[in-house]
């Protein structure tokens, strides 16, 4: 299962592609792709949206222990939450069940976002 993420051009905020092609700030509202081709098509479409999303890329997501789904990579969970040295900053500040589920999610994998970044560098 995959989700599409990026940073918003205007303010750098972490965003996810939600329903009906709308970009959303909360991971809990991200559209999930079971179909690889559909995910890649969404990524290709996002890359043409010059004024919305910077460097969109697909992330792997999987069912989390506490329910719901979470990014498999720790880096991507951290992006979806905020920095661990300031729990009052970033999306985690909002609290609630979805944030708690992400905080307690486990699993590890390399982030495609970082790998792409290194390759481009």
């Amino acid at each position: 299962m995959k989700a599409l993420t990026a940073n918003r051009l205007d303010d750098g905020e972490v965003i996810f592609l939600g329903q009906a092609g709308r970009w959303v700030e909360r991971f809990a509202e991200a559209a999930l792709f079971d179909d690889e081709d559909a995910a890649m098509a969404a990524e290709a479409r996002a890359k043409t949206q010059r004024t919305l999303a910077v460097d969109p890329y697909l992330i792997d997501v999987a069912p989390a222990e506490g329910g719901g789904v979470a990014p498999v990579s720790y880096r991507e969970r951290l992006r979806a939450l905020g920095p661990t040295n300031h729990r009052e900053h970033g999306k985690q500040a909002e609290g609630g069940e979805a944030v708690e589920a992400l905080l307690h999610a486990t699993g590890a994998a390399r982030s495609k976002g970082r790998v792409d970044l290194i390759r481009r560098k």
Partner: protein
Amino acid sequence: MYRYDAIDAEMLADRVGEFREQAARRLAGEITEDQFKPIRLMNGLYLQLHAYMLRIAIPYGSLNPTQLRKLAEIGRLYDKGYGHLTTRTNIQFHWIKLRDAADILQHLASVDMHAIQTSGNCIRNVTADPYAGAAADELDDPRVWSEAIRQWSTFHPEFSFLPRKFKIAVNAAVVDRVATRTHDIGLYLRRGEDGSLGFEVYVGGGLGRTPYIGPLIRQHLPAARLFSYLQAILRVYNRHGKRDNPNKARIKILVATLGAEEFTRQVEAEWEKIGPAGDLPDTELARIRGAFTPVAFETLPARSAAFDEARTKNPAFARFARNNLRPHKKSGYAIVELALKAIGETPGDITAEQMEAVADIAERWGLSDIRVTHEQNLVLPHVKLDDLPQMHAALAQTGLASPNSNLISDIIACPGLDYCALANARAINIAQDIAETFGDPDRAETIGELKIKISGCINACGHHHVGHIGILGVDKKGEEFYQLTLGGSAAEDAEVGKILGPALPGPKVASAIDQLVEVYLRERNDGERFLDTYRRVGLTPFKEAVYADAH
């Protein structure tokens, strides 16, 4: 302190206006991210994990209270009320919006500040001794040379598109407080046998993926010939640096590939061609020197009754005095280290309120002079011993009196995976764990000088290679692991540390450091620092302690 003249001010205003237009075009979709990225980077604006990050230059780490108050204002207006000091003596704000960036640059320009030379393949912010103008062991003021290099290198057309970034450090004291030999060019001011001032020139040092301690390529470069020599070095680099592979593009790789001797030969040949025409006119150096006129210190006795009394009566002040004061060249004064390393806090972070407090304190007791160190701390270089008790009380009120300068909890840590898009692993949480493990100030003092440096990836912004204990975050199939190195040093005895053994999971790092410290305390001879003991006994006893469970 150097103040910008009308030409500098006009140049900055033009630059801000240009960036404002470029950012507007990007936001309107008239230019692509690929076109815009190099432009924003040349203005210090990075896109990180959670937001844009603006890296602001603090040339040779020197600030006045007006500038620090402006940084506080920016932190409050455009960020989340704090900033982060870096190992290049810059300050970063981690929650910046692209739409605000030009306004921030305009704020900075109003106090002679900017974000130029904080990114890109140019000559980066020059670093210098934070004790400049105050250290007893100083031959000349390194800020004069650093400012001259800054002016010479800013927008230098020949050196704005180098194969990779380029870092220069200037040390003019006997003690090396700028990690001279870990720089692309490290300049060490010395007196020659004839008494003349000259630079020892080290080239090709650097950390990152391939760490090198820079070899000496010229023993005594007459000080007046500095700029033609810098030009010659950069020309050889520009010509032969490997532009096709960013991992091999730094000058250290060129120097190592050619060998220091051949590299030197080429530089000297180029230098011959350039000749004295490439040097700075004496009048220009004198103009810059005029901005750093020696401070008019008062004539004071070496002892201060107020200082002695406070040390006797106030144990917290006595501890601060033991660890955070350094001898000043003038009797009755001290150099004061403000360690931004309160136990459990983020190394190098400073809140807007703390910035304003430091600005007030520097104005009241510190001759309005503030420095940033590459160890992510602040320094007030000129404080009267008589004023220290009052100043300490004011620092304590705002959480800036951490008495741990140079001790085990005075840790360098890069922002790591909490903020940085390139990081493999977090660094801040590891620093916090270690600081808390050694939170007992008596134990920390018993351990003495121990420099721990943590990087969240191999780019080594946290200088882990030259930590007495270095910690490198690595990615093991997406999990955070940490590789320990021992025996590094960034000082006069510069050395790259040796890997202790297999990487450890994050929760085990602080206890491994504790085991290393226990070996040191067991093995040390009188007066030995951790580094000295390590050098005498070698890696084995330390390795055995940490990996005992594995055998």
